[in-house]
């Protein structure tokens, strides 16, 4: 391992440590708002536990949730950055290091061998998605994809005749059937595209957008709001028990579709939405954009 890889590895390990133990600012803010509106009784009991847990996680320096997930990175990599060739190895080693030091739960089970590797490293895992951008900056989005939040994930390709009405119905069907078990209040990502794999990937990218951001198209933003308000009108609350807020928000990401197909992907983030955004300069100085005032 070169010195640079070593240094980057340690930055990413510390980054993952923060992501596992402290929720990003937008999520904390949203949960605080929802807690204030929680119905007396069971919903209040659950929110009290959630906030007690977040506080104890910081005091005792432990991961918020035992399921620290399959580690995924969504990287916006500046094509001129000298760090580019070092990122894959450093991210992977960073996962290995955080698994020991944080610690993170072992969540990589090899397909067919059906063995847990015990390191969180496995075939194509950590998952790294690359977006090449101009310039020399690097932005790493880390996401801990827990099992509970991954279970409701699904995609379908509809006939265009189903329309956006069909998209809305698919999201509601998925959420009422599966979302209730995925630790609400949820952040819902919807991808709309012309094929299932594009829609799926976009649905995941959608839940990485900070709460409060909107789809750039006016109809897109309207669609997000209609879905979010509708899901919050079902009477479902924290942990799928009766309550006020089923979702923290609905985010839609889209790609132009084929005239003959209308695909929908759905991804879910649980209330313990462990996401972090790290901006890295070429000299390896960095800024933690998702958690203001927190140092690594």
């Amino acid at each position: 391992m070169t010195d640079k890889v070593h240094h980057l590895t340690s930055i990413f390990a510390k980054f993952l440590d923060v992501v596992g133990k402290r929720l990003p600012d937008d999520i904390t803010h949203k949960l605080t708002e929802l807690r204030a509106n929680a119905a007396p009784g069971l919903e209040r009991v659950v929110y009290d536990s959630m906030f007690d847990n977040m506080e104890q996680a910081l005091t005792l320096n432990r991961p918020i949730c035992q399921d620290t997930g399959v580690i995924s990175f969504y990287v916006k990599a500046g094509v001129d950055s000298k760090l580019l060739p070092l990122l894959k190895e450093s991210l992977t080693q960073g996962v290995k290091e955080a698994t020991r030091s944080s610690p993170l739960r072992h969540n990589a089970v090899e397909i067919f061998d059906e063995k847990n590797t015990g390191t969180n490293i496995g075939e194509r895992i950590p998952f790294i998605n690359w977006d090449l951008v101009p310039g020399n900056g690097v932005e790493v989005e880390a996401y801990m994809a827990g099992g509970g939040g991954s279970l409701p994930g699904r995609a379908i390709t509809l006939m265009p005749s189903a329309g956006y009405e069909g998209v809305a119905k698919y999201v509601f069907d998925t959420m009422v059937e599966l979302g209730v078990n995925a630790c609400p209040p949820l952040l819902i990502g919807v991808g709309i595209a012309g094929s299932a794999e594009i829609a799926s990937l976009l649905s995941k990218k959608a839940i990485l957008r900070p709460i409060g951001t909107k789809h750039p198209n006016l109809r897109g933003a309207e669609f997000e709001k209609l879905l979010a308000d509708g899901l919050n009108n079902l009477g479902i609350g924290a942990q799928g028990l009766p309550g006020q807020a089923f979702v923290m928000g609905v985010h839609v990401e889209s790609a132009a579709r084929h005239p003959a197909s209308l695909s929908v992907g759905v991804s879910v983030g649980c209330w313990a939405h462990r996401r972090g955004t790290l901006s890295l300069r070429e000299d390896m100085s960095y800024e933690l954009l998702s958690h203001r005032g927190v140092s690594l």
Partner: protein
Amino acid sequence: MKKVLHTPVTNEDLQDIKVGDVVYLTGHIVTCRDVGHRRVIALGQDLPYSIAGKAIFHAGPIVEPTEQWYKMVAIGPTTSMRMERFEAEFIAATGVKVIVGKGGMGARTAAACREHKALHCVFPGGCAVVGATAVEEIEGVEWLDLGMPEAFWIMRVKELGPLIVSIDTHGNNLFETNKALYAERKEAVVKEIAEKVTYIK
């Protein structure tokens, strides 16, 4: 006042408890999830430790090995519905009295809870540090070949909770009842949205 159940739990302890009640558990609870259930029911293996009158936790914890033994770092529930396929037979075979997990379970589990007098409870998901601080001691571990999350961790806990009763010994099933209600409301909401999103013209 906190309602605390102590293991071994008897049928009488559970008879007045209803869905929606909040209880706490003191005594012995073991983690048992996907492969654990499969081993006992589908593969016919014996449980390595008797859980009659005790509790199971649908959970895969973070456990840290220490020089002497193990430390519970984080433990919270996993989705109980994954165990639905095996749970009814598991309750009958083991005599387990309290099942802790998250989300609801199905009609077969509810029927088994009524017949064999057992509860299913929800521990708030994602509250793993609250869970871990209720663990007084890890008393043993079996099936470590399955890896940390799937191993059979035997724990002594003090006032583990809040546990929200989702299936009681009378066969009431909170999530199934609610699900029907949610589905009904869903139809109306989707219809309303559909009228506003006729973007393809």
